């Protein structure tokens, strides 16, 4: 038992470190990609290729005064950023980076991730509500409507994969898949992958579904009133959530640590990075959808498709049990 505890503690420290690092790297990648897509250089002044720019930004954020608006709810106002960041550390624990490289071997790993990522919505709601600001409140309302809606197709698409694998344990799901791309779940479940990516964008409030923080309508949405590290934590949590979402996609659809030649963890990180890059490209390519469009996409398209996909999968899984001899 102590051995297990030590493993979790080491994992937590590693996760905390890597989340900080991911935040820094992603800020740089995001700004560089944005720059190059718009044919600008992006940050290039601080350090080689502007690599130290996010560090400078982070120092600025840490050094700023923490400020709370009049009549805001002090407890909820300061609780919200912490609450948005804390569960993120937990989300990384069950992710298997390699055959033996994971912090927490839990047979309901996927459930744990899905359950605790649900807390993010609560923090956005609290932050927007407690700021005593109309834009914050509108952003919070949007965040709730959006996240509640997009969680359903997300769960349904994930469930289809779990039907095939017969397990909610992420490591087991990976072991069911093979080395080569045609052995991965994306070949048998392409629709689920598509639904998963779209609803993951909705869940993480990334563009084109970044309505809770739509800057053209709501200044900054739920984090309008946050400055300094309060905003920094929301920001960090957003990027960490992106990584979690991409990691889960890698585990469920892209064969996790499987891949030829290179060792497992390298493949895992490579796949996650590619997915992250894709999400960043989405942000700088697609315009933000309107709110009714956002919900229409979910309820009229993703939901029925996810349900149909799930039922078909269940049918074939059952059929395979009777007919196919393994």
């Amino acid at each position, binding site marked *: 038992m102590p051995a297990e505890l030590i493993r979790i503690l080491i994992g937590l420290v590693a996760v905390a470190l890597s989340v900080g690092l991911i935040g820094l790297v992603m800020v740089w990648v995001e700004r560089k990609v944005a720059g*190059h*897509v*718009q*044919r*600008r*250089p992006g940050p290039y002044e601080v350090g080689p290729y502007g690599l130290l720019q996010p560090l400078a930004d982070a120092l600025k954020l840490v050094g700023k005064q923490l400020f709370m608006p009049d009549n805001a709810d002090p407890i909820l106002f300061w609780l919200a950023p912490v609450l948005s960041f804390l569960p993120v550390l937990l989300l990384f624990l069950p992710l298997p980076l390699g055959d033996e490289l994971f912090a927490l071997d839990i047979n309901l790993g996927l459930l744990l991730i899905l359950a605790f990522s649900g807390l993010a919505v609560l923090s956005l709601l609290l932050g927007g509500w407690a700021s005593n600001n109309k834009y914050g409140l509108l952003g919070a309302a949007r965040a709730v409507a959006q996240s509640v809606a997009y969680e359903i197709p997300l769960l349904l698409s994930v469930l289809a994969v779990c039907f095939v694998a017969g397990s909610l344990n992420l490591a087991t799901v990976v072991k069911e898949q093979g080395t080569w791309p045609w052995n991965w779940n994306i070949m048998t479940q392409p629709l689920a992958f598509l639904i998963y990516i779209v609803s993951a964008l909705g869940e993480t409030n990334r563009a084109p579904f970044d309505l809770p923080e739509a800057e053209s309508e709501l200044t900054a949405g739920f984090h309008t009133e946050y400055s300094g590290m309060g905003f920094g934590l929301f920001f960090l949590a957003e990027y960490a959530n992106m990584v979690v979402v991409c990691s889960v996609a890698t585990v469920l659809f892209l064969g996790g640590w499987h891949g030829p030649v290179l060792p497992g963890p390298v493949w895992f990180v490579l796949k996650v990075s590619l997915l992250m890059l894709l999400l960043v*490209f989405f942000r700088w*390519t*697609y315009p933000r959808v309107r709110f009714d469009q956002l919900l229409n996409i979910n309820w009229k*398209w993703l939901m029925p498709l996810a349900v149909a996909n799930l039922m078909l999968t269940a049918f074939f899984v059952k059929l395979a049990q009777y007919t196919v001899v393994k």
Partner: protein
Amino acid sequence: MNAIKEALKTVSDLWSLMVGLKVTGKYFLEPQRTVRYPWKAVANLDTYKGHLELVGGMKDPFKPRCISCGMCALACPSNCLTVVKKKAPKPTPEEEKALAEAKANGEKVRDKTPKDPEKFLYDYTLCSLCGTCMENCPAGALRFSKNVYMAGYSRNDFQFDLVLKLRESDARAPKAEPAAPAAEKSEA
């Protein structure tokens, strides 16, 4: 039936997402358009309209083409131009004699007053760069400079004598080129 058609159209319209990604992907790989200014200068200044400057003459590029008629000052809506004419040189005794003779004979006397201005005062703080002075100039002696880099510490730094400026560009420019690039250097 219509509903199915609409749904199919929506699905086929998803292709536009791919087109969008193709566009941003292409731009991502193409070279940048930004000029990293303090390290690299902007090359394309042909369309830039800077402050007013005098055009040099055909023979002497550092002597203004201006004929001191004052049309520009008259036309200027912001009253930022003042043209000071040159006075006629004091005639020598022989010239005076010749003049008196010519007058006695009833001949028309040619005015010896130089046409180019003594001073051409220009207040850049008032100028709206409308170009009316250039349009009204009968001699084509005015133009906009290409001087992007002009900066000053006080309001007085922007009150020029354009004749002096043109002459100074002679002193600073190594070669007798049209005054535009030289004036740029003198201000930088």
